[in-house]
């Protein structure tokens, strides 16, 4: 196995251990805390919290997440072709790889244009446009 991945493994482990380590050192240093009633409440500008904080949130976060997944998979799929591109060009086979890259990206640009025209890229959606007609 490549040595680099052993290093990567240890970096992740040591970084992960750092957090409990620091919190543990803090536990030894700090005075024992006596929590007050106000102190254990969620912070809402000093008022008593109203209801749970786990509220429903806007659907647009979901839309953004879906568009993101499509494009992120695109990038992940383009990377191998992009890696081969230079060697292919130097060997005179650039046209094939370029055509593949171009087709793949063009399809996704079409998707982006579709989202754009449909208004999925607007953060503030036109309320009147989608409101039910009376």
């Amino acid at each position: 196995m490549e040595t680099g991945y052993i290093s990567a493994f240890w970096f992740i482990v040591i970084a992960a251990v750092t957090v409990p380590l620091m919190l543990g050192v803090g536990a030894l240093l700090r005075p024992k805390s006596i929590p007050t009633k106000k102190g254990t409440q969620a912070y809402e500008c000093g008022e008593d919290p109203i209801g749970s904080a786990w509220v429903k949130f806007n659907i647009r976060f979901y839309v953004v997440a879906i568009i993101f997944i499509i494009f992120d998979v695109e990038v992940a799929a383009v990377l191998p072709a992009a890696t081969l591109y230079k060697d292919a060009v130097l060997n005179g086979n650039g046209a094939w790889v370029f055509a593949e890259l171009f087709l793949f990206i063009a399809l996704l640009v079409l998707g982006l244009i579709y989202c754009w025209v449909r208004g999925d890229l607007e953060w503030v959606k036109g309320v009147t446009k989608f409101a039910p007609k009376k």
Partner: protein
Amino acid sequence: MANNSALFAQTLTDWTQGTFLAPVPLWVWAMVSALVVIYLLALPFGGIATYIERKIAADMQDRIGPNRVGPLGLFQFAADAVKMLSKEDYVPPAGDKFLFNIAPVLVVVGSCAGFVALPLGQYLVAGDVNIGVFYILAVTTLIAPGILLGSWASENKWSLLGGLRSAAQIVSYEIPVALSILPVILISGSLQVGEIVKQQGWNPDLPIAANAHFWNVVHNPFTVFAFFILFVGGLAETNRIPFDLPEAESELVSGFNTEFSGMRFGLYALGEFVDVFVMCAMLAALYLGGWQLPFLELDKFWITLPSGLIALIHVGVFLVKTLLLVFVVMWLRWTLPRLRVDQLMGLCWKGMVPLALFNVLGTAIWVWAFKGQSMIQVAMGLFSGGGSSH
């Protein structure tokens, strides 16, 4: 792809061959290198960066800044650390305790693990994995779930709002960032960061011109734009002003870390500074030539320099480039106002993503047309027909 840059662990093994340390296995040296890089480079940088940032802020606002603890206030970050360590530890009783504890771990891991693939010098890299660029992208994305989980587990409305904004923002800007790295890969034909940096040297003797094109940022007209998109996207990925909406203190109290106190908050802040360093180091390595001195091959200097000195110069050059970018990041904080959330998403999806896609295609055409030669090489008419000798 030949593995031409030695790793920390490999170097340490070679050095200790003849000594009593020879039987120590490779993975121990890998662990040692991880300890050294994280505890002597990553985390101290995060600490000192807070001090530097306050000093820069003070200078720009015509103040003095921290000057009480130690000479010039240099030990301010140590005082801050002691203060944070001695703060009351607080886990919201109504929240999700497990997720609350795991969230800072994700942020710290996401930022520190990025250091593995950063080439500090030609032979100084913790692990030059063959998927380097992809690895850094993947690992630094761990910060997004870290922030989202922390905000969700806090059971606080400010946190949730900040966390959701942060998730939408980081996720969206991931796309222009990744797309702006693609031109570099098209030019270099490798995902290994060490190899990409190596190709940004200037060496007229090489048979293949494309293997010694100068810095990627001036490779062709499109990479100039790609560099700026990557920088702006990096600002958004690390939640820096003008993209600090997740912790917009004037609207959301403190955003996603409202309920984090003491060292938990400190680790969040530390993780973000380390992430800024990783982002800037990646920019320096991918576009600004990493440890390469412009137009100077230290190995082929007219006097033979000791290899240790060359390594030191390389590390110095790399750090100067990275820290200059970090300075620009800090500078922007006191220059630009914060974006509105709809402007933020509009800028990403309608501005940067199409421009980044355009850059990818433009670079692909350039590489095809000029056989991978850079603007400078084409302009100087050097290496004519260099590609055919491959």
